[in-house]
């Protein structure tokens, strides 16, 4: 049996390596030679990063008709959330019964970041006698049906909030969250293959890969393992050779389904660096509505504002954090009225530079996970694909490398 885990995991590795090789086309090679002098960022490892040896990853199989039973059992562990269709869109909502769940979705409007850094939450309460910190209760939250891109998004938030300085509010929520992933098939807006986030090896507790009549269940953490052990009557470790073959075929089919890509994602940091003064930014700035939708839906956007509110009786009040966006006006305005980024162009430039370039210098990886939310929801079509394409074309305009 042990051999079979190894087989699956090795296959995953090979798939990733072959993907990298594919990327290394002649064109990109030329660009890499041309631009490599600009690559001055050391690829630093994140402060806290647990390398899990994927060979140790335990894998189970579950028959599809036992899934409702699994949901019933997992519900006893805490409040369960999962993808639900409502109002024509999907979102993670509270789950009462198995029938509420709908796993046949591409993306929810807001990702699982809402469980970790909710758009609005209290941090402090005070009255005339003093102040107390507000923390969430110890109740476990379970979110099921999270796609690989969103799991990568959570990993990026973890690096920021659980790095050298830990954010106590995030930490509490993160410790109380159980993440159960679910496999997905891409649509025309999915770009996770370009960003390298179409597969996950860690960051989840359990991960369900849906095949024809059963699930492959991957265990990604101790929490996940204990859930798996509790459910051993539903899960089995017997995975046959045919089932592995079926998984392999499914992976191949999935990887061929991607229609969109970010051109030369690997070199985007350099391309942005070269394009710092490009007129492309002005063109996008002209179009941008400064509405903040991109930050609201992005699974890695986490900037927050802090505001105090006093209740109507003027006796007590609270301090709260509200999701903010660097594309909104006044984002960089200081007391006295000086605004460091008064125009849309400079704010939009901060958004994309920070996300696609500067994150690499800080954490070794851009903070775009290719979920396609900005592609779907930006009302004026400013998104990672259009921005990176425009920048790519701009830098290639007069250069023979792009032929």
């Amino acid at each position, binding site marked *: 049996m042990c051999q079979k885990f190894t087989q699956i995991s090795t296959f995953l590795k090979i798939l990733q390596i072959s993907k990298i090789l594919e990327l290394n086309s002649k064109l990109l090679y030329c660009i890499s030679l041309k631009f490599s002098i600009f690559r001055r960022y050391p690829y630093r490892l994140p402060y806290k990063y647990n390398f899990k040896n994927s060979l140790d990853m335990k894998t189970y199989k579950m028959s599809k008709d036992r899934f409702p039973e699994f949901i019933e059992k997992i519900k006893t562990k805490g409040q369960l959330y999962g993808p639900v269709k409502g109002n024509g869109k999907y979102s993670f909502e509270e789950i009462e019964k198995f029938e509420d769940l709908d796993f046949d979705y591409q993306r929810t409007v807001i990702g699982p970041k809402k469980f970790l850094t909710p758009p609005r939450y209290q941090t402090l309460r005070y009255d005339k006698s003093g*102040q107390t910190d507000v923390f969430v209760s110890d109740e476990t939250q379970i979110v099921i049906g999270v796609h690989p891109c969103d799991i990568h998004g959570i990993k990026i938030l973890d690096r920021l909030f659980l790095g050298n300085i*830990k*954010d106590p509010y995030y930490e509490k929520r993160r410790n109380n969250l159980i993440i159960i992933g679910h496999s997905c098939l891409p649509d025309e807006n999915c770009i996770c293959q370009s960003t390298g986030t179409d597969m996950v090896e860690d960051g989840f507790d359990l991960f369900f890969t849906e095949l024809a009549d059963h699930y492959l269940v991957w265990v990604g953490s101790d929490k996940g393992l204990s859930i798996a052990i509790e459910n051993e009557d539903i899960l089995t470790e017997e995975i046959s050779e045919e089932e592995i073959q079926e998984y392999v075929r499914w992976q191949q089919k999935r990887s061929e389904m991607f229609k969109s890509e970010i051109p030369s994602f690997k070199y985007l940091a350099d391309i942005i660096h070269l394009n710092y003064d490009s007129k492309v930014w002005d063109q996008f700035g002209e179009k941008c509505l400064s509405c903040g939708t991109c930050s609201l839906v992005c699974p890695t956007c986490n900037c927050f504002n*802090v505001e105090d509110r006093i209740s109507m009786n003027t006796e007590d009040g609270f301090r709260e954090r509200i999701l903010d966006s660097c594309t909104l006006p006044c984002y960089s305005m200081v007391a006295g009225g000086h605004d460091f980024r008064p125009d849309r162009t400079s704010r939009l430039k901060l958004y994309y530079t920070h996300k696609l370039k500067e994150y690499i210098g800080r954490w070794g990886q851009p903070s775009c996970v290719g979920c396609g939310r900005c592609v779907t929801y930006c009302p004026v079509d400013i998104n990672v694909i259009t921005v990176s394409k425009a920048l790519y074309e701009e830098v290639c305009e007069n250069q023979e490398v792009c032929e």
Partner: protein
Amino acid sequence: MAITTREGDHSYVTQPAKILAMKDLTEDTRYFKFKFLDESIVEENYKPGQFAIMSLPGVGEAVFSISSPPTRTDFIEFGVRKVGSFTEALFKLKVGDLVHLRGPYGDGFNMESLRGRDLIIISGGLGAIPLRSVLLYVEDRREEFNQVFFLNGARSPADMLYREDIIAMAQRGIIESHLSVDKDDTGEWPYHEGVVTTLFPKITDRVVSEKTTAIICGPPIMYKYVIQELLKLKIPKDQILMTLERRMKCGQGHCGHCAIGGRYTCLEGPVFTFYDVQHIKELI
């Protein structure tokens, strides 16, 4: 995080501090002196140039440069200009009232690495507030530094901060001060008139460029012109230190407001060198 956070505290813990004294410096700028209620907190583990976050329940939080030096450990001082809702509420407080402080945050001037060097301290307007911490540090540990020049620019004689203190320090030979105002509307200003860069000729012949460190703080417009003068004096780029201002909410690199490219001013600043400025776009 030495002042307010102790073992076991989370990073947003604030400490109540009492207003010991306050004094109007100019029409809209006031000096505040605080003492922590918790006697075990000693105000010494910070660098000049670092900042603290002050909280008033019901009003909010705001960032202020610490203007007292780490060498004076019985109290902590700030200089505040009334420009917004928070400072308006702060100005309404009386001696003995409480505020909540957390910090210090950011990376300040590393005074220990400047031992034995000449200093040119250049301040414009409110820039004198964080630089007061540097000046008082120099006063308390004068033997650690060689010659110290202080150039100060203000809009008018009434806008000049800490005038008596600076003149007293100059008379005692601690610093060589050169003061200037953009426009003397009183007709009684005994010193130079003109922008701060016009003070440079007074010190040019005595600056030893390889031994000198320049420390700048002032309004955004000032940096460009002052740096030009310093480069003319051949001060090395990594010895031109400046402290910058950005909007901040958390002080811990999480809220994102102070990001300049990938740098967070609250973690890697507010003190930057001219070398940083050349390599990070948008810094000044």
